[in-house]
């Protein structure tokens, strides 16, 4: 029984990997950060913080993406700032469809979009030539991390 479950999980992972153009970072492993780096043609530098690492990807467009990796290996948050929005489908992975659903609901104006659920927080803001945003999975955020630092 136990073994069967493991096999199923492996097959599932293989299926997910094959069905997506790239592996999403949010909720993923540090390997997915490298996938993002390649997909976005970015340079990367890593800064260590207490209990987590910040992988900063500098995109050719001038936009900077930061991915927050817990010591457990989980990518618990991502953030972006710059003249263009990054590939949010790549960056948010399975969570992206929920951001899209939120954006399909009529809303007041075009400068901010927030999705604040118990299991997913996404904030997207800004104007042409100046965008910023962040997303995190509350369940994966280490207790020592203030969510305000995910930026």
């Amino acid at each position: 029984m136990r073994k069967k479950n493991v096999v199923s999980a492996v097959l599932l992972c293989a299926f997910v990997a094959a069905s997506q153009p790239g592996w999403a970072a949010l909720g993923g492993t540090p390997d997915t950060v490298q996938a993002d780096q390649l997909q976005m043609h970015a340079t990367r530098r890593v800064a260590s913080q207490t209990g987590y690492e910040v992988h900063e990807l500098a995109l050719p467009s001038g936009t900077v993406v930061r991915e927050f990796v817990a010591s457990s290996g989980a990518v618990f948050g991502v953030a972006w700032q710059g003249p263009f929005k990054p590939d949010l489908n790549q960056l948010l992975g399975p969570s992206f469809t929920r951001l899209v659903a939120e954006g399909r609901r009529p809303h007041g104006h075009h400068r901010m979009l927030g999705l604040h659920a118990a299991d997913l927080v996404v904030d997207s803001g800004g104007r042409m030539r100046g965008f910023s945003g962040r997303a995190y999975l509350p369940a994966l955020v280490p207790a020592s991390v203030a969510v305000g630092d995910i930026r």
Partner: protein
Amino acid sequence: MRSWTVPALLATILLHGCGGGSSNSPAATPLNGSSSPATVAQAVNNVQPISVNAGPTGQIPNMVLTSVTICVPGTAACQTIPNVQVDTGSTGLRLLASAITIALPALNSTASGGAYSECAPFADGVVWGALVTADVQLAGEKASSMSIQVVQDNGVGPAIPSSCSAQGAPQDSLALLGANGIIGVGVFVQDCGPYCASNPAAMYFDCSRAGACSDVAMPLAAQVGNPAAFFAQDNNGVILQLPAVPANGAPSASGNMVFGIGTQANNVLSAGVIAVPDSGNAAGDFTATYNGVTLPYSFFDSGSTGLFFDDTAIAGCVAGGAGDGFYCPGTAVALSPVPISVAISGSNGASASIGVTVANAEFLFTQPGAASLNVFSDLAGPTGATLPNAFDFGVPFFFGRGVFTAFEHRSTPAGTGPYVAFQAYP
């Protein structure tokens, strides 16, 4: 009762974004109020009426709207489209395909012969659609044969590329746009600018190849531009003038969009000027200070329906209630106004404060007679983390003021753009 600070009334405040101005640019010099405007040989009508209401959906407060006339280039085949949102926070004219009845020529690639489409990014999603060429007319002004975007809301045209849809939800309907289109008259002359002129940026696409769209670079001259920067005259900036509205709100407000700065007698930027240094970012923002916190990404924005800033001392409205997403100081059975002050400082050493008021949004939206009230000068809300380090001076700020947007690289009597400024309502 609004709480105005004296400087806000007496001074004209000039704020420099980056990209052009520097701290020693001519705009940093106090403007001589007696300087006479440069006159053009034949002045044309440069005043376009604007109105503020709940928009064609009737659902969104503080929508600034105007009518835009588009024509097949060089012909009298024209159409006037009402209820187009006036947006100083973006650049370019974008109109719903379903609102256009004249046949505008597609903008084609000379290399491939295919047709160009655009993925215009906004914080809440993307605007996808084909580029066409049109003459654009407002008041007596005309921009000849410029690129505009047709927002694909009818399913006709190339499918949205994955690199576009990966940036967010398509805003492809009247309900989502809240208007028949957007006329962006921000500080930039083109929506993307130099980066897209030499790099594919998932913004411009050549949709020639077997129905597929390729991400391409786009020459500046063919990018979607700011119509007010392409007029034959009065093309260095725009002024939005709106009267004050009662604290409890009003059904609507009427004002003007005046083209040009210092080009005619009716668009002079006068009185003392305070210039704010560049904040080091590329979006034309300026630095404001609120509650002792420096906010270098602040901006004036007619496309924001409220004032948006973060202050944990002001209570947010109850989630799911009438005021959800806005501030609700005090009690929802009264206006409960809270005056606040935002400081802006100038490179000439002077500073000024902007006074605005935050009212209880739930009261504004549920007070007796609320069903007919659409326009509020004291509607404000938090940004959460969506606009870090910013004070978004949305439409409430524009009431009772003339707000100037000077276009990049364009000369005005107060210096070269980009900058933004304001003075008391005429």
